[in-house]
C-alpha cells in the first residue's frame, strides 16, 4: 500500500511536482506515466525519503518511509539501476544489502538466480555490466528482503524485448500474490501491458488517473473515412472533439455511435470506425502531456 498525499516539490521558482496525490492498493500494478522531466523520479524519491517534499507527504505500508525501522523488508526500491559502486561485484552489492537488512546469506544467490544473473555475471564488477544487467541486479536488490511493496523507476530501461517480457511476468506475479507495485515509465506500451491502474503526470501535475480499462474506455473512437478532410469538417460541425491519430485516422472523444451518426448524416463513406483502444491511450498520453516535454527541454 502506497499513499501519496498532495506532494509538492519546488526548487526555487521552479515547481518540479505540484499537488500529486494517488494510492496504490495491494494486488495491483500502478503505472506511473509521463514524459521525461514530468516529475516521476522526484515524486518517487520523495516517497522513499530521499528528497524532502516542500509540502504534502507520502506513506508506505502506513508509515512515512523514513520512520520504517527496516524498510528493505517491506519495500523494494529501485530508483536508479546505475547507482551502484562500479568497483563492487554484483554479488557483493547484494551481500552488503543482505547484511544490512539481516537477510539470510542464501537469499543472495537465490535472488541473483531469480533475475537471471549467473555465477559468472555475479562475480563481475558492476562497472562491466550492461544497463540491462544493472536493471536485473537492481531488481534482485529490490526483491532481496522479500518485500510487499515494490517501487521501481524506469525498470525496463535498457532491457531487451525478452527481458521486458520477463520483467512483466515478475511484476504481474508479484502483484497477483498480493503485492503492491508502483513502476514508472515514459514508454506507454511498456506500462500498458502490465499495469492495472495508471497515473499520468505531466509538468509536475497528475493529468489523469484511474483503472487502465476505464481510461482506455474513455479514450474515444478511432474513425477513418475515404475523404478525411470532409470528415474533419463534419466532426467539428457536430461538436465532436477530434485530434489526428498517429496513423492517419482521427481519434474522437465520443462514442462510436455518435461519430457514426454524424458521418451518416453527412453522407460520408467510413473505412474504419472502432473504439480507440490502446491506440487511444497513446493519443491520450500525447495530448495530456503535450507541451510538458517541450517545457522540460528548456528548463
Amino acid at each position, binding site marked *: 500500500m502506497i499513499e501519496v498525499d498532495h506532494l509538492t516539490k519546488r526548487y526555487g521558482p521552479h515547481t518540479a511536482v505540484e499537488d500529486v496525490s494517488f494510492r496504490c492498493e495491494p494486488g495491483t500494478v500502478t503505472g506511473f506515466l509521463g514524459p521525461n522531466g514530468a516529475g516521476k523520479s522526484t515524486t518517487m524519491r520523495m516517497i522513499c525519503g530521499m*528528497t524532502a517534499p516542500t509540502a504534502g507527504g507520502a506513506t508506505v505500508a502506513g508509515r512515512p518511509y523514513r520512520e520504517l*525501522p527496516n524498510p528493505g523488508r517491506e519495500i523494494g526500491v529501485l530508483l*536508479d539501476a546505475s*547507482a*551502484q559502486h562500479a568497483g563492487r561485484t554484483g554479488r557483493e552489492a547484494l*551481500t552488503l544489502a543482505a547484511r544490512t537488512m539481516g537477510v539470510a546469506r542464501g537469499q543472495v544467490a537465490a535472488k541473483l538466480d531469480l533475475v537471471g544473473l549467473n555465477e559468472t555475471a555475479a562475480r563481475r564488477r558492476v562497472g562491466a555490466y550492461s544497463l540491462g544487467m544493472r536493471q536485473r541486479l537492481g531488481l534482485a536488490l529490490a526483491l532481496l528482503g522479500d518485500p*510487499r511493496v515494490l517501487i521501481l523507476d524506469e525498470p525496463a530501461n535498457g532491457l531487451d524485448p525478452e527481458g521486458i517480457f*520477463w520483467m512483466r511476468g515478475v511484476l504481474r506475479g508479484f502483484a497477483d500474490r*498480493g*503485492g503492491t507495485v508502483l513502476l514508472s515509465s515514459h514508454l506507454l506500451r511498456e506500462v500498458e501491458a502490465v499495469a492495472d491502474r495508471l497515473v499520468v503526470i505531466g509538468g509536475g501535475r497528475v493529468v489523469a488517473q484511474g483503472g487502465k480499462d476505464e481510461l482506455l474506455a474513455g479514450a474515444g473512437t478511432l474513425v477513418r473515412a475515404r475523404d478525411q478532410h470532409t470528415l474533419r469538417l463534419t466532426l467539428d460541425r457536430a461538436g465532436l472533439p477530434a485530434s489526428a491519430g498517429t496513423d492517419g485516422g482521427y481519434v474522437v472523444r465520443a462514442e462510436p455511435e455518435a461519430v457514426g451518426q454524424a458521418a451518416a448524416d453527412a453522407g460520408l463513406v467510413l473505412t474504419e470506425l472502432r473504439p480507440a483502444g490502446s491506440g487511444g491511450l497513446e493519443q491520450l498520453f500525447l495530448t495530456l502531456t503535450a507541451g510538458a516535454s517541450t517545457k522540460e527541454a528548456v528548463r
Partner: protein
Amino acid sequence: MTAVTAPAPTLSRPAATGPSLARLTGVELRKLADTRAGRWLLITIGLVAAVIVTVQVFVLQDAAQTFTAFFTPSLFPVGLLLPVLGILSITGEWSQRTALTTFALVPRRERVVTAKLAAVVLAALASVLVSLAVAAAGTLAAGATGGAGTWTFDWHLLPYAAVFQVVNVLMGAGFGLLLLNTPLAIVTYLLLPTVWSVLAAMIRALREPARWLDTSVTMEPLLGPDMTAGQWGRLGVSLAVWLLVPLVAGLVRTLRREVS
C-alpha cells in the same frame, strides 16, 4: 529463467526491527575493503609502515635500533593515509551514488554516518596494531643483523598513538562529510597544514593562533615523550575547530541533502 517466480509477498509477519549499530558498522567495515581501490588503500597503509621500518633497519645506528625507534616513525605516513580512508568512506557513497541504496535501506541517515565513523575508528586502531607488528618484526630483524634490537617501549606511547591515528581518520571523515566530494575533501585536507605554515611564516600576528589551531603543530607532541597539560589544551582547541565543527556541520548537511 524459463519458469520465473518472484517471492510471494507474505501479508503478515513479525514487525521488522532495524539493523543494530554493530551490524551497520560491520557492513561499513566490509565496504572499506570490498572494492579494488579500497583494498589497495588498506594494503598501501600496511606497506608504508613496513617500508618505513625496513628503511630504519638500514639507516639507524645499531645502538638506536629499538622497538620504540621503529614504532614511532611508522605512525606519520600511516597518519597521512588514514584521513584519505576516512574521506573515501564518506564521499564514496556520493561519488558512486550508492547513497541511493544505502539510505533506501537505512533511511535514518545519522545511523549510517555513526556506523561509518565507528568503522574508520576501528580501522585506525587496527593500523596502530599494524605499526606495532611491523615494529616488532623490525626489532627482530635488527637483533638478527647486529643492531640493538632492544624491546624498550614507553607504554604511554600506545594510547597516544591510538589518539593520533583516530584523530587523523576522524578529521578526514569530517572533511568528507562537510564537502561530500572526494577530490575537494582530499585536497583541502592535505593543503591545510601547508597553508597554515605559509601564512604563519608571512604574517606575524598568525603565529600565536597557529600554535592553537594548526593541527600539524598541536598533534606533534602526541608522538613525543610526554604531553603537558598546555599541549593537551592546545590539541583540544585545534580539534574542536578542525574535527568537531566539520563533523557536526557535515552531519547536518548529509541529513538534509537530497539524494539523487
